[in-house]
């Protein structure tokens, strides 16, 4: 560390500035000549201390800053290191520790924005100097600011009632917080409720899930709103106002006890309509319940198929059969409002539409099924009571499972959906167990990375399930030999054997991948969070903040963030609940003081700013003829400051003179 600081005298008028540049091991120093930058900064006006150090964010690094502030009577602090998104807070604290107001500090990003993205050392060093100079120029104009503290509402909203939402809600409720769980379908349980067994342990999904579902329903701290959707979110961290639409199910939830007498009494003697929960493989009546353990155990009426709704001329035997008078054909949508401090989004995924890969014949050949359909077929409480049969009721003698349908494919989805290998192995085991059929897996790679997953794969190999490594080219009913007649033929290049195989089967299972929900974009806009390129919700940091989002107080859990299996989903749900607890139990949040304010004497009363504010934080004082900004509502975008023709609106931390000096700095010599 060079000493650039021998007895520097400070010319009049300028605040005393300390400049620090971080090596970040070799992350910065490997590309940028940090000693040279420190030496350069020492010569900049106002700089009285300039140092480079191996790790500025370390305790000794921070201590050095605090000590220098005291010793050299520093009035401003500049640290050139990584992104302010990572360590701005660290150095603000270091400043405070030395007795300096935290906001007399400016951070320079020379790692993410320079050393990591440039190879030319000379050019990167020159850039670091420019950025350092800009910060030194700018920091002179910084003002002492205080963070505003606002209380946090202790209630939490969880959106989505799959295993992620259920687990997050229960965790929070058990910690004594009031939780509202909003689910768009008529029951909670999500995809997991449709599964028979779970990999790799093959424990029954219902056996482990339904107790948690009942716990949600009966928990005194949880309000469960199914068949409901969040329509609007306002406010900010700690203080969100949420509007929820409760769709009519035409059954009064509080009165229905789930006896299902109404279903028996329906004028449709036999179930007639495709049953969505069973992937259309089963039938239901217009009045129905998704499955016996549905939670809440409340029936609902589908107005699309109910005769009363279609003609108004039904004898309404269902209503007659209900001695609690729970059926209400006139039920209307209800709109509810909630105040919460934190929100957890656990909105899950949808599966890839197999029709988008027409060469696999889904929708064309009746023998082709999706994995979710097979989940229902192997399920003891499914439409066939667990019997694996084709659509015509026949038993398949050979079954082919095609992996990676809508995954790892340039033409559809590039990502690996992470669960398909394992659920395909599970289904292979269950199909073989239930039907005795020969089962063929067609795979690219078997991805069995998880506790006891590889062992499960080994078990399948020893069970006599066949594995053929190759991406299936097509499923066809074109028979080349008499043995192939009446079969579905999978054509595939066996990449281990090195030739093209034709494998005739009776049933084809498409292991469809996981995709973002169809409305993921609308939902993320509603909650003001981001999505990655592939459409899953974007976490704040892929490693260090996996359940946080860029909007404080909004957390994500489960497959809405990326495809994941049940163990990972539950782990993430717990993490999201813990993050929400941290926020709530702190009792208050500190808001960035980057709000705007009006300098009253300079305001000319033109009202240009008033309609610009998306939060209606700006009002007009008719008596004084001046604009007024409510700094509690202001979120600090600075749109008004940029628009004010008289320059009377100032945004803290982004005042005009601060930005102008920064421009001068980056362009200066």
């Amino acid at each position, binding site marked *: 560390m060079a000493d650039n600081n021998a007895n520097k005298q400070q010319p009049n008028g300028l605040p005393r500035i300390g400049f620090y540049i971080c090596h970040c091991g070799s992350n910065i120093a490997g590309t940028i000549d940090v000693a040279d930058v420190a030496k350069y900064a020492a010569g900049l006006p106002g700089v009285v201390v300039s140092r480079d150090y191996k790790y500025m964010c370390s305790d000794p690094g921070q201590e050095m800053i605090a000590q220098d502030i005291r010793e050299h009577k520093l009035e401003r602090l500049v640290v050139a290191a990584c992104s302010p998104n990572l360590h701005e807070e660290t150095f603000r604290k270091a400043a405070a520790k030395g007795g300096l107001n935290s906001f007399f500090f400016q951070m320079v990003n020379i790692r993410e924005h320079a050393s990591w993205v440039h190879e030319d050392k000379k050019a990167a060093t020159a850039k670091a100097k420019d950025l350092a100079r800009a910060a030194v120029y700018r920091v002179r104009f910084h003002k002492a600011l205080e963070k505003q503290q606002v209380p946090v509402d202790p209630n939490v909203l969880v959106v989505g009632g799959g295993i992620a939402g259920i687990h997050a809600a229960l965790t929070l409720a058990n910690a004594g917080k009031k939780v509202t769980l909003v689910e768009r379908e008529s029951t909670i349980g999500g995809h997991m409720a449709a599964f028979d067994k779970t990999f790799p342990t093959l424990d029954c999904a219902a056996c482990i899930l339904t107790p948690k579902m009942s716990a949600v329903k009966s928990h005194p701290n949880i309000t469960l709103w199914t068949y409901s959707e969040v329509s609007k979110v306002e406010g900010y961290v700690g203080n969100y106002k949420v509007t929820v639409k409760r769709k009519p199910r035409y059954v009064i939830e509080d009165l229905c006890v789930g006896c299902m007498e109404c279903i028996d009494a329906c004028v449709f003697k036999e179930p007639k309509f495709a049953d969505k929960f069973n992937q259309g493989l089963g039938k239901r009546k217009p009045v129905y319940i998704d499955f016996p353990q549905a939670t809440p155990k409340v029936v609902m009426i589908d107005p699309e198929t109910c005769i009363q709704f279609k003609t108004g001329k039904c004898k309404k035997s269902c209503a007659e059969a209900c001695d609690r008078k729970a059926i209400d054909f006139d039920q209307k949508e209800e709109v509810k409002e909630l105040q919460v401090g934190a929100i957890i989004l656990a909105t899950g995924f949808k599966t890839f539409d197999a029709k988008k890969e027409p060469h696999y014949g889904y929708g064309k050949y009746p023998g082709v099924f999706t994995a979710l359909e097979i989940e229902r077929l192997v399920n003891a409480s499914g439409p066939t009571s667990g019997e694996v049969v084709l659509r015509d009721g026949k038993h398949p003698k050979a079954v082919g499972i095609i992996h990676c349908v809508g995954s790892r494919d340039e033409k559809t989805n590039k990502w690996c959906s992470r669960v398909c290998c394992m659920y395909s192995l599970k289904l292979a085991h269950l199909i073989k167990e239930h039907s005795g059929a020969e089962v063929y897996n067609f795979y690219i790679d078997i991805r069995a990375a998880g506790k006891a997953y590889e062992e499960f794969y080994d078990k399948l190999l020893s069970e006599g399930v066949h594995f053929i490594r190759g991406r299936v080219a097509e499923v066809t009913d*074109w028979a080349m030999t008499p043995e192939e007649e009446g079969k579905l033929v999978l054509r595939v290049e066996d990449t281990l054997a090195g030739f093209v195989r034709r494998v005739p089967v009776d049933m084809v299972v498409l292991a469809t991948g996981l995709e973002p929900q169809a409305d993921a974009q609308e939902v993320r806009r509603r909650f003001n969070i981001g999505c990655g390129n592939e459409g899953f919700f974007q976490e704040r940091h892929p490693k260090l903040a996996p359940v946080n989002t860029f909007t404080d107080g909004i957390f994500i859990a489960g497959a809405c963030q990326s495809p994941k299996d049940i163990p990972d989903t539950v782990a993430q749900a717990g993490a999201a609940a813990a993050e929400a607890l941290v926020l709530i139990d702190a009792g208050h949040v500190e808001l960035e003081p980057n709000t705007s304010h009006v300098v009253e004497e300079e305001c000319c009363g033109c009202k240009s700013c008033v309609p610009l504010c998306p939060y209606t934080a700006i009002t007009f004082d008719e008596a004084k003829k001046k604009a007024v900004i409510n700094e509690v509502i202001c979120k600090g975008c600075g749109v008004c400051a940029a628009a004010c023709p008289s320059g009377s609106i100032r945004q803290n931390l982004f005042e005009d003179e601060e930005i102008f000096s920064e421009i001068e700095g980056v362009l200066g010599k």
Partner: protein
Amino acid sequence: MKYLYFPGCSLKGTGKAYEESLLAVFRALGVELKEIDDWNCCGATAYMSVDEAKSYALAGRNLAIAEREELDVIAPCSACYLGLNKAQKSLQDHPEIRARVTKALAAAGLEYHGKVKVRHPLDVLINDVGLDAIAKRIKSPLKGHKFAPYYGCQIVRPFASFDDQYDPKTMDKLLAAAGAENVTFPLKTRCCGGSLTGTVPEVGLRLAYIILKEAKKRGAEAVVTVCPLCQFNLDGYQDQIARKFEAVDMPVVYFTQVLGLAMGLSADELGLKRSIISADVVLAGR
């Protein structure tokens, strides 16, 4: 409705019946086709493997001539359709190829700007003329006739601009409009043998045989195709296929011939007498 017509070598030679039936059908539909002035080879096949840029220059010359008129180009031969479209795309995407072609064309006083659209007659019939208009022209529907609609590879791979890549349906729709029945044919876009029928016959003939055999098995009285090479392979090699595998005796006709028949045009003007395997079965009932 008016289009430029790029026949290519096939439609003037082995695919004469395609040209005759195509022109007759378009004439009957009131669609004007103007043959491109002084056209040359589309640049397909051999050129492509010798020197891409030369192949694109050939295509480029045709396109540059076509650009003089603000009309879409119809390229009925699958190889021409693909070759010209491929050239358009390469000239668009690769400035270095474009520079070479521009220079070559300049020597002939021509300029290429990429303005014309190269289209397939199926695309034009379905999307410009429309099924309704065609249905109105059907005078003697092909009731009771069963066909295997066979598209070949080049109009759906790699560019599938007007139909589904895996399961094309435009010709199915036309044949249905003509009153015929389409058998379910899973080999719609499978290889006909291509140039392998001549170069590696043990492979090429087998590929052609697979298609003919499957069409027969599915109950089709004829294979209906859109491509002169497919037609040539499937129709012209049946004696060799009979010697090597078995006799299939399956007529192979163009979709324009079938459509023309339904529109009341004569077998002669549609070139139906040119088939090697007699197409008389298609004429049954008229």
